[in-house]
C-alpha cells in the first residue's frame, strides 16, 4: 500500500460506485454510479433523507463494507480490493470513527475506551497513556478519565467517542450522525469540537447528518437522494 495520503489531490476518491443489497430474490440499489472526491483537510457534510445511502457511503469510505461495483481510493490506497485482514489494519491506521450512539464499551472507563485503538499499535503502556491524556485533554474531559460511560452525560460520552476517534491521529475522521442523539446545546459543543479539529489541526472530516444546523458547520455539503449525489453546493 502507498503511504501517499492523496491521489490526484483528493484524499478520498470514489468512482462509479454501486452498492446493491439482496433481500431474498429482491435487489436493493442503495448507491448508483456514484462518484465523489474529498480533498485532504476538508470538513464535508453528507446530507440526505433516511435510506438515501449516507451511512452506506460512509461505510464504503471507512472500509467497513465493499462496493458491488466501482473503485474506492482513500489515503492513497484502493481499499475495495483489500482482504478483510488488510482492511482491518488499514482502518486502524487511517480511520477514526464517531458514532451516533457513541458506541463506548460500558465495561471500560473513559480512558480505557480511548485507549482501545492504541492497543493495536506497538506503543508502550506509558506512551499509550500519554496519547490518551492528550486526546482527552483535546475534548476537555481530562477530569472524567476514570469515569465509566454510564456515569456521563450524552455529550460527554460523545466527546469520549471523538477522543477515541482521534487518539491514533487518523488520516480521516468519519462521523455518523454525531449529534443525532444529543440535545441542541450538547450537539453544538460536539460540532464546535469537530470544527476545531478541522480548522486548528487540519483533520479531514466526513460527517453524515440529516440536520441542516449540523451541516452548516461543514465547509461543504453534498446531498444524497436515492443513492445518487444530487448536487455539491460549496459553502
Amino acid at each position, binding site marked *: 500500500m502507498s503511504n501517499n495520503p492523496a491521489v490526484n489531490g483528493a484524499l478520498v476518491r470514489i468512482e462509479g460506485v454501486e452498492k446493491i443489497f439482496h433481500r431474498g430474490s429482491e435487489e436493493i440499489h442503495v448507491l448508483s454510479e456514484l462518484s465523489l472526491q474529498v480533498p485532504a483537510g476538508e470538513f464535508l457534510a453528507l446530507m440526505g433523507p433516511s435510506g438515501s445511502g449516507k451511512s452506506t457511503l460512509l461505510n464504503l469510505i471507512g472500509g*467497513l463494507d465493499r462496493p458491488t461495483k466501482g473503485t474506492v481510493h482513500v489515503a492513497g490506497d484502493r481499499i475495495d480490493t483489500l482482504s478483510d485482514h488488510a482492511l482491518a489494519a488499514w482502518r486502524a491506521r487511517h480511520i477514526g470513527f464517531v458514532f451516533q450512539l457513541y458506541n463506548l464499551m460500558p465495561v*471500560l472507563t473513559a480512558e480505557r475506551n480511548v485507549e482501545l*485503538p492504541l492497543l493495536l499499535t506497538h506503543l508502550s503502556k506509558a506512551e499509550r497513556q500519554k496519547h490518551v491524556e492528550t486526546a482527552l485533554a483535546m475534548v476537555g474531559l481530562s477530569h472524567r478519565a476514570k469515569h465509566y460511560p454510564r456515569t456521563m452525560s450524552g455529550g460527554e460520552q460523545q466527546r469520549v467517542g471523538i477522543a477515541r476517534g482521534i487518539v491514533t491521529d487518523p488520516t480521516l475522521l468519519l462521523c455518523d450522525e454525531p449529534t443525532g442523539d444529543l440535545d441542541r446545546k450538547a450537539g453544538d459543543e460536539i460540532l464546535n469540537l469537530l470544527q476545531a479539529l478541522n480548522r486548528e489541526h487540519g483533520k479531514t472530516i466526513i460527517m453524515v447528518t440529516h440536520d441542516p444546523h449540523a451541516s452548516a458547520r461543514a465547509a461543504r455539503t453534498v446531498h444524497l437522494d436515492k443513492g445518487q449525489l444530487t448536487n455539491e453546493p460549496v459553502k
Partner: protein
Amino acid sequence: MKFFHLVWGNLKRRKLRTSLTLLSILVAFVLFGFLCAIKQALVGGVALAGADRLVVRHKVSLIQLLPESYQARMERIPGVAAATHQTWFGGIYQDPKNFFMQCPVVPEQFMAMFPEFILPPEQMKAWLATRTGAIVGRKTAERFHWKIGDRVPIMSPIWLRKTWEFDIVGIFDGAKKGTDTTSMFFRYDYFDEARKSQNFGTGQVGWYTIRVKDPAQAADVARRVDEEFANSPAETKTEPEGAFAQGFANQIGNIALIVGGILGAVFFTILLVTGSTMSQAVRERIGELGVLKAIGFTNGQVLALVLAESCLLTVLGGVLGLGLAWLLTARGDPTGGMLPLFFFPVRDVLIGLGISIVLGLITGILPAQQAMRLRVADALRRM
C-alpha cells in the same frame, strides 16, 4: 496482557451470571480433586510398588496362609535375591473404627525389603532388642498421639482373640510422598511364640515378598516360584507387587473407569453451562464487537478475545476449585484410616489445570467463531 482489562471487564459485565458459572466450575474442580485423591488412595499403591518385588500368596486366596518353611525354598530359587513374609493381624485399637494395618514381620529382612520406610538406626536397634517392640508410621503415631516408650494395647479378633500389648520403639517416615505411614509392624518371633501357646496358626504366614535380582526376569522368577510349590497342599500365586496392589483395588471395581465416568458427566455439564454463558455473552454485545472491528481489530484478534474470555472464566474457576480441593485434601484421610494414601497428587493438579484450559477453548470456540464472522456494518446496526 494489554487486552486483559477488556477481557476482564467483559467478564464483570454480568456479575451474577459470571459468579454462578464460576461457582459451578469451582464445584466441578473440587469434585475432580476429591475423586483424584480417592483414586490415588485406592490405586496409589500400584504406582509406588517396587519394580523388583514380587508378592507370593496362596493360590486360593489371600486369606489362606502359607508355611513359614517356604521362605528358605524361595531363597534357593534362581533369580531370587531375598524373601520375607508378613501376616495380616487385623487388630483394633480401642474402637473398631480406628482402622490401621498391623503385621508381624522379621525386622532386618523387612526393613531391607522395604527401603521406602525410613527408621532411625537407634530405633532399629531398640526394635531388635525389644521382643514386644513395634514400629509405627508417622501418621498413625500422630493420630493416636503415640510416642516412643508408650505401651499400646491392640485387640486381635483373629489371633488368639486377646488384647496384645506392644512397646512403641520406633516411628518411621516415608521416603516418598505417597508412602503409607499408617501401618504398624511388630516382631514375628513374639507373634509366633504366642500362637504356639495355643497351637493356632503356628509356622504359618500371610504372604511373602521376594526381591528379584533382575526386574527384567521377574516373570520367569514368578513362574519358577509357582512351579516350586505346585501340587503341594499350599500352592502359590506369584505376581508383581504392582499387580498385587491393583488386584486389591479391583475388589472395589475399575476405579479409573468409575472416576472417569463421574468426571466425564460433571465436565460435560460444565461444558454446557459455560458454553451457554459464553454464547449469551457474545450475543448481547454484537454491536460492541462491531465497534472493535471498525477501529481495526482483525477477525483473528476478535476470535482470540472471546477465547481468552472463556479460558479466563474456566481457568479462574479451575484454579479456585483445584486450590480448594488441595486445601481440603491436605487434611488427610477423611475416613480415619481406610484411605491411608489419600492426597491430591501434583500430577493430577496439573491435569486439572490442563482440563480447565481445554474446557475454556471448547466452550469458547463456537461463540468466538460467531464473533469472528460478524460483518462490521451489520454488527454496528445492532449496537
